[in-house]
């Protein structure tokens, strides 16, 4: 558009620029701060910085709960992502491609974990698992299975949302073309539908991983001593001691997720789909 010149327009432009800058600043300021805090040499988390060191990152590795937390978080996130994908890919295909009674209702129910506060999900899941433990004698809280089951719940709405959006954008006519060429319904899905929604599948998997890896509310309820995810370990450490280790652990957590994203970005253009 050609530049406008009236005062009102200039004011409008200025406000937009100002609000954008402030918004952006609010968003990235904490991340910059935590990055800074992770390298200051003060032994208690405070400012001004007395000097700079990378020791806190080494310190993270000396804390067994961080190592264990990192390991457990990764296992849980990977497990929840895989199981979530196995459940949601067929579900999404059925939801988008078939017209049946109650379709909208099911769609909304599958979305409900997005709306229900995570602490409610965590608490109800905890009670379910405790009940299960009491009844069957099989330990559920603190077990990898329990964590994964809980986290799958969190990832399902993300996966359904990303996959159904991708499927809805895929012209059904291409699937019809495949059928007319002799492809059975299963062949249509494996040869046409799945290859074409690969971006959606990758995006869903990444989001599942990120949501699961970063989750606190649900993990908190499911954790038992010695079986902590990284966010829970960070929380517990914070209750005990506030030093830059915690900033370093946070930075590492963000770095790991960021790395996963950068690697995936090499294969599919993430910014187009998230």
């Amino acid at each position, binding site marked *: 558009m050609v530049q406008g010149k009236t005062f009102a327009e200039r004011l409008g432009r200025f406000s937009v620029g100002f609000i954008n800058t402030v918004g952006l600043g609010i968003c990235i300021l904490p991340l910059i701060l935590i990055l800074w805090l992770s390298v200051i040499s003060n032994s208690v988390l405070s400012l001004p910085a007395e000097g700079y060191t990378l020791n806190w990152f080494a310190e993270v590795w000396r804390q067994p709960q961080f190592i264990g937390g990192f390991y457990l978080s990764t296992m849980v996130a990977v497990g929840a992502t895989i199981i979530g994908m196995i459940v949601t890919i067929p579900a999404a295909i059925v939801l988008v491609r078939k017209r049946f009674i109650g379709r909208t209702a099911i769609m909304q129910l599958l979305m409900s974990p997005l709306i229900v506060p995570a602490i409610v999900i965590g608490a109800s899941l905890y009670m379910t698992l405790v009940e299960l433990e009491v009844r069957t004698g099989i330990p559920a809280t603190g077990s990898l299975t329990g964590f994964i089951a809980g986290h799958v719940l969190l990832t399902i709405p993300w996966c359904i949302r990303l996959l159904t959006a991708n499927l809805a954008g895929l*012209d059904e*006519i*291409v699937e*019809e*073309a*495949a*059928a*007319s*060429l*002799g*492809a*059975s*319904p299963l*062949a249509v899905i494996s*040869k*046409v539908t799945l*290859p*074409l929604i690969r971006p959606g599948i990758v995006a869903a998997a990444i989001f599942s991983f990120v949501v699961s890896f970063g989750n606190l509310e649900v993990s908190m309820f499911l954790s038992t001593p010695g079986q902590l995810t990284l966010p829970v370990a960070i929380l517990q450490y914070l209750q005990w001691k506030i030093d830059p280790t915690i900033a370093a652990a946070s930075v590492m957590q963000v770095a790991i997720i960021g790395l996963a994203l950068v690697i995936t970005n090499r294969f599919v253009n993430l910014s187009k789909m998230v």
Partner: protein
Amino acid sequence: MATVTIENLRKIYGDFVAVDNMSLEVKDGEFLILLGPSGCGKTTTLRMLAGFVEQNNGRLAIGERDVTAEPPYRRNIGLVFQNYALFPHLTIFENVAFGLRRRKLPEDEIKLRVREALELVRLGHLEDRYPKQMSGGQQQRVAIARAIAIRPDILLLDEPLSNLDAKLRLQVRDELRALQKKLNITTIMVTHDQDEAMYVGDRLVVMQEGKIQQIGTPIELYNNPANRFVASFIGRTNFVEGEIAKGETSFKAKSGTVIATTAAARASNEIVVRPEMIELSAQKTDEANCFDAEITSSVFLGGNIEIVATLPMGDAFTVITTVKHLKDRGLAAEIGSRLVLSFSPESAVLM
């Protein structure tokens, strides 16, 4: 290569009757057109033939084979869609090979038949490209190659030309017609464009509101439209309201103008005169219908010229003729000039 039989086909969506008890025989090797405005049921009919829409009633057969209950992937029908519907993740070669791989043919055979199909549409040199690297016309030719590579019993085309540019449309249209004649494959095409339909179709099925209005060759539909809808949909038309009793040979228009016709088979209150059937001249002719007229509009359309000539009684007739024809007769088609308009009694067709 087969006949197609449609018997009492019916499709209802809620209250809306999309296709109403339609019966039709398509001959072996015929190029049949389903023609009509949007919502007339032509596409629904095609989709029932392909197996994507389930009919409420009726029977469908390809040759001797009843396909009424067959799923799409067992009907052995070649389909070409309006928006090409190529597989974007596969090369042109793999697009065309898709149907052959589903048939589990040996690799050598697949190569042979893909190349053959691509040669037919003159795209053999582009087999390693992806669909998005090609123009619309090329993509539609690939879609045609993909459909014929499986050697289908019949070919169904759903508005295959309407996504193409005007000039390209003519080219692909000519190719499509030549290919159909060469392969001699029974073909059913859906379109809303009468020019396209007349150009490629052996027979045209004119549909409206789920019902067949008339079936015939282009010239049959043009010369003897069954009703007002067909008359206005096929070609351009002058409608004249008035009245004529059974057996009479003169039609009294509302304006008072009297038009000579052949003996009326029944009473009627409307006739049609095709704009191309009207002759313009400087002097009175000995044609039964001969009127003085004034040119009230004249548009040059490249070769053709479209003239509106108004009679003293107020009737306006559209006349389509060629510039050459006017020149040969020494006529200028200037607005306001006066001339004589004449047409034969056979050209005044009863509605």
